[in-house]
């Protein structure tokens, strides 16, 4: 049941076919974890907040640098040197004071993976390192929680939805950590924000049942040519070291 204030805030989206008060309530009851809150995770978290996700956990270790400001749109120049999770939480809390925002000044590691994923109903993976993405994937598969994985490089983007047991997982499509990846990647905020919105939409569709979630498909964005394509993925691998033992479900 929505409050009068919620009904007013979300009145323009309640008319989306299939959403309604029931879908809006589901969003409000959801805890989403977003890791990290940079060029991709920041705009994504903001869109989740705008949509009315009730509780958002922002996972990001480290302080804001000047070189983050071309893309990390939840930040502000006068916050350089402050923890980015706190900055992102402050921006989002000001934007939507009706939701709960939980900053976590840590990156995803083996040591905190279980604790962090346990707090969430759905995980949005926006980390720039394969090691973190693989950890999130593994923990989501173990706890059977949905994962929306997103990544970008230069003018390219990829978004991929993992429903443990029903779709391939990240380790099915990338059975090992790629060796060629370098920590610093070319990025302009307009592209990372666009990829973020696609991931946010997939999550909102999954939570509310509106539209059709791209399950078993890799969404590919080439903003250089404005091409959007989907590749139909092979079924989850029986020999996958992460999800192979899970029974197929629909």
């Amino acid at each position: 049941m929505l409050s009068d204030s919620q009904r007013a805030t979300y009145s323009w989206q309640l008319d989306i076919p299939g959403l309604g008060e029931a879908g809006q309530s589901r969003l409000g009851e959801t805890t989403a974890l977003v890791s990290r809150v940079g060029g991709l995770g920041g705009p994504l978290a903001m869109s989740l907040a705008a949509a009315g996700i009730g509780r958002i956990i922002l996972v990001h270790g480290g302080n804001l640098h000047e070189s983050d400001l071309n893309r990390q749109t939840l930040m502000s120049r006068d916050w350089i040197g402050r923890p980015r999770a706190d900055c992102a939480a402050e921006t989002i809390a000001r934007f939507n004071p009706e939701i709960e925002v939980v900053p976590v000044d840590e990156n995803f590691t083996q040591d905190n993976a279980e604790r962090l994923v346990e707090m969430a109903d759905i995980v949005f993976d926006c980390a720039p390192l394969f090691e973190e993405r693989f950890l999130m994937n593994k923990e989501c598969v173990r706890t059977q929680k949905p994962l929306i994985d997103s990544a970008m490089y230069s003018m390219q983007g990829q978004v991929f939805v993992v429903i443990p047991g029903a779709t391939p997982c990240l380790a099915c499509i990338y059975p090992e950590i790629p060796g060629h990846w370098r920590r610093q990647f070319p990025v302009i905020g307009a592209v990372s924000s666009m990829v973020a919105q696609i991931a946010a939409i997939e999550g909102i569709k999954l939570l509310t049942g509106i539209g059709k979630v791209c399950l078993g498909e890799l969404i590919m964005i080439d903003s250089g040519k404005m091409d959007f394509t989907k590749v139909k993925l092979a079924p989850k691998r029986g020999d996958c070291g992460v999800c192979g033992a899970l029974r197929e479900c629909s």
Partner: protein
Amino acid sequence: MGADSEEIELGQNESIQSLLKGLAERGGKDFAEIVIDGDGAPRRTLLVAVDGQQIIDLDEPLDIGVVEITLIPPISGG
């Protein structure tokens, strides 16, 4: 390779594996590093789609009617 797409006529019994070997030989070191490993086998991290569908067996001869082969290297910026 300096190009994001290229038209290629498939040879008889051409597989993705043989195709990648040929592309790697003329594509330069950086491209080769992404698509094949030190033994000349396709990288396990390279996702390959044929006409929009991921294929797993990269050694299988390709259907002569194939229209589009997509090589998708992993990316991880955020």
